[in-house]
């Protein structure tokens, strides 16, 4: 891409081994005044891992996501991404370092086309965003990446449509496409299937499953069936605290988890 490496906080150049941790959280606390929304969370996510973060409503999942991506700075503790301490770095710096996320509540550019949304997603880490008089047409290279990401998200046919004309499911797909287009090292998906019809859920599941294996994915999800299909490892939070960690199977059998989460989820359902 266009010379962004020179302006970025330097990431270690050494080649990541598959087993190297991509993300390390050390005793992360996020407090809003007296309220601690996230309490002393530590976890390590390895490169290429698929991780789910589960927990009942108010468990602190989205707050933890925000602390990882820089929407909120952690009150204390450390966030290390690819060997760089990003605890005090703003969201867009972390994005440039290779983090990418979707939002639980759809947050797109409704009056722009799918293509333009993708371009904005792509230019965020490029110096082209400051081109005042250049052509807005993506470069061939960028166009290829946009096409690839739209292809992965099964949205290629809708490239010219305005986002406000898309169905909700398509908007969720676009969320994912935008998160993918910058070729992130770490993808965070905040309830990618929330509010979708069963048919749309299948599409989302397919998309996540077809993501390249060298991409690390962390997702928040309520739907245990989806979680079981998609991830290697599950972390469960409750009231902002660490509750349990393990393989999907072991977590779904864990008594503590069943008490606080699965039990409740069944009640809801």
């Amino acid at each position, binding site marked *: 891409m266009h010379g962004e490496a020179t302006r970025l906080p330097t990431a270690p150049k050494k080649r990541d081994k598959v087993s190297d941790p991509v993300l390390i959280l050390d005793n992360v606390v996020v407090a809003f005044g007296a309220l601690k929304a996230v309490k002393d969370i530590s976890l390590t996510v390895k490169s290429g891992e698929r991780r789910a973060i589960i927990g009942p409503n108010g468990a602190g999942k989205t707050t933890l996501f925000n602390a990882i*991506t820089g*929407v909120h700075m952690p009150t204390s503790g450390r966030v290390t991404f690819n060997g760089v301490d990003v605890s005090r770095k*703003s*969201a*867009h*710096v972390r*994005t*440039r370092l290779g983090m990418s*996320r979707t*939002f639980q509540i759809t*947050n*797109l*550019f*409704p*009056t*722009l086309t799918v293509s*333009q949304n993708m*371009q*904005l*997603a792509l*230019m*965020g*880490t490029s110096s*082209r*965003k*400051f*081109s*005042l*008089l*250049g*052509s*807005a047409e993506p470069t061939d290279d960028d166009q290829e990446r946009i096409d690839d990401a739209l292809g992965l998200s099964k949205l290629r046919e809708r490239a010219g449509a305005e986002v406000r004309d898309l169905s909700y499911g398509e908007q969720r797909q676009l969320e994912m496409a*935008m998160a993918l287009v*910058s070729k992130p090292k770490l993808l965070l998906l905040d309830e990618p299937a929330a509010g979708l019809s069963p048919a749309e859920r299948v599409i989302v599941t397919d998309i996540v499953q077809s993501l390249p294996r060298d991409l690390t994915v962390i997702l928040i999800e309520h739907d245990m069936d989806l979680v079981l299909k998609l991830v290697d490892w599950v972390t469960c939070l409750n009231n902002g605290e660490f509750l349990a960690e393990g393989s999907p199977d072991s977590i779904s059998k864990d008594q503590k988890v069943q008490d606080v989460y699965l039990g409740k989820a069944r009640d809801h359902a």
Partner: protein
Amino acid sequence: MLVDSFAKNRPAIIAIAIVLLVFGIVPMFGSNYQISIATEILIFALLAMSIDVLAGFAGRTSLGHGAIFGASTYVVVYWTSVVGGSPIVAVALGILAATLVAAVFGMLASRVSGVYFLLLTLALGMIVWGVALRWTSVSGGENGLRGVGRPEWLNDPTVFFYICLGIVLTLSAVIWRLVQSPFGLTLRGIRDSESRMSSLGYGCATHMFIAFTTTGFFAGVAGALYALFNNFVSPSTVQLSQSVEGLLMAILGGIGTLFGAFIGAAAIILLENFVSQYTARWPMVLGFMFIATMIFAPEGVLGAIRRIFRVGKKS
């Protein structure tokens, strides 16, 4: 490739051709007075376009651009009359001053949006107005500064008109290019969702700062032309109503249409000059026209024309 870029820029090419045609023939049958009205419309269309870049593309309504425009006017008149300097240098200094004022405004206003942006730019504009009113030894207080007239080679109203036409059309092509550029796309992104933009890696404040300063440059060019046109400046040139008028022109023509500014400027200036001959209640007529626009064509005149065309195409 050429055909491709023609298709992309077709709205701009058509608009510029129409403006060139409509305005270009004014001196052929118009009196000097009508030429001066046409000149004024061009100057204010440029001001309205500079406001429209922020209002229509970045979703920020500025009430400070009248003051930026007027800052340039003050500097040009001051430089030519009080200092006795050359008009070319004066124009350069005027534009520079406006750009600097806009940079200061932009630094302060780039972090806020919505009604806070409106109020902050309003307050900043009031400061410029206050300085113009109080710094009597430099600004001439409420009596303002009287210019020395245009230089010989610019004095002919027709020559001056064509120069304004050339400058304004060139800059409107530049502004069109600006809003269609990658940077222009980021402004539209900020308009739609600032939070999403920052999560995508954009420093929104930096983009707004650049946008504000750049539009300040365009307003400054308009202000400098106005100094040469009006040959006089007083606090009324930097007062709030100047910003409001520029904004009304942009709204009337159609926010986000850019070239609607020509329609808005023409409508308001013609109304001020011709309706006032028949009734002292012309501000009321202006008010009614504005209300009617808001009700029947909230997207502005050019916006409405576009909509009708689009509906026609679909059916």
